[in-house]
């Protein structure tokens, strides 16, 4: 053993290198909460919380001094479009939840009352569906920017 230090270094390298190749730690997987929803109200709820999580992430990016100001402005522009869409969605889902409660309450009422409640619920459901669709594009745009910066 002419050079024990070199032999030790080689032994360490040979031990650690295969360990690097085989190691599996903390695999990152981005979930899509909206895909798990089955009903309109669940979908709206998932969209609102997903959007909140995306803005929280965007805030961290904006606070990072290393982020270029142009990118921060692009995030700001996307947020100014997406937040009103989320507000419209909240109004639509609240109206839907109320219309559904009214319909359930009217189940023991007269036929005209039940029909009115059913029509109101149908309209609220259609408006909610439109609001979910309308929120999709602006929220996706902000999400794409966040992921482009982070990914």
């Amino acid at each position, binding site marked *: 053993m002419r050079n024990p230090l070199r032999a030790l270094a080689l032994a360490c390298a040979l031990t650690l290198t295969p360990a690097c190749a085989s190691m599996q730690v903390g695999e*990152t997987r981005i979930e*899509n909460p909206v895909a798990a*929803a089955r009903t309109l109200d669940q979908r709206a709820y998932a969209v609102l*919380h997903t959007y909140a999580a995306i803005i929280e992430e965007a805030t961290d990016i*904006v606070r990072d001094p290393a982020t270029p100001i142009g990118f*921060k402005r692009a995030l700001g522009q996307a947020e100014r479009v997406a937040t009103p869409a989320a507000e419209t969605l909240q109004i639509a889902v*609240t109206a839907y939840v109320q219309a559904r409660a009214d319909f359930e309450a009217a189940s023991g009422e007269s036929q005209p009352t039940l029909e009115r409640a059913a029509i109101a619920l149908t309209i609220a459901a259609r408006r909610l569906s439109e609001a979910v669709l309308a929120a999709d594009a602006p929220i996706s745009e902000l999400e794409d920017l966040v992921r482009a910066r982070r990914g």
Partner: protein
Amino acid sequence: MLNWIMQLQLLLAALSTFLPLAPSESRERIADVLDAAAKALAAGGAIAGNIDDLAVKLAAVRAEVEAMVAAGRQVTADELDVAMARVRAASANFRAALETAEAAARG
């Protein structure tokens, strides 16, 4: 992402153990290169940590929605209020942070 960075960091550690085998005149330069790569990976790890934050939050929302679906439960008005309050708070924080960034950029 974190997994990938962790593997690269371990590979760097393994490579650095080869340092004594390098010719003495270039050993310092190689050590500098490995050190710079390790710092770059550490910065990348911090960024990956942030994307992991988002992944954790989205996974929590998904788990909550899946539980609702499994129980056949409807969303309540109170839950919607909480969700919207979170959106409004996040939006206000974002706009404040953007104003601070704009002020810093101006001057």
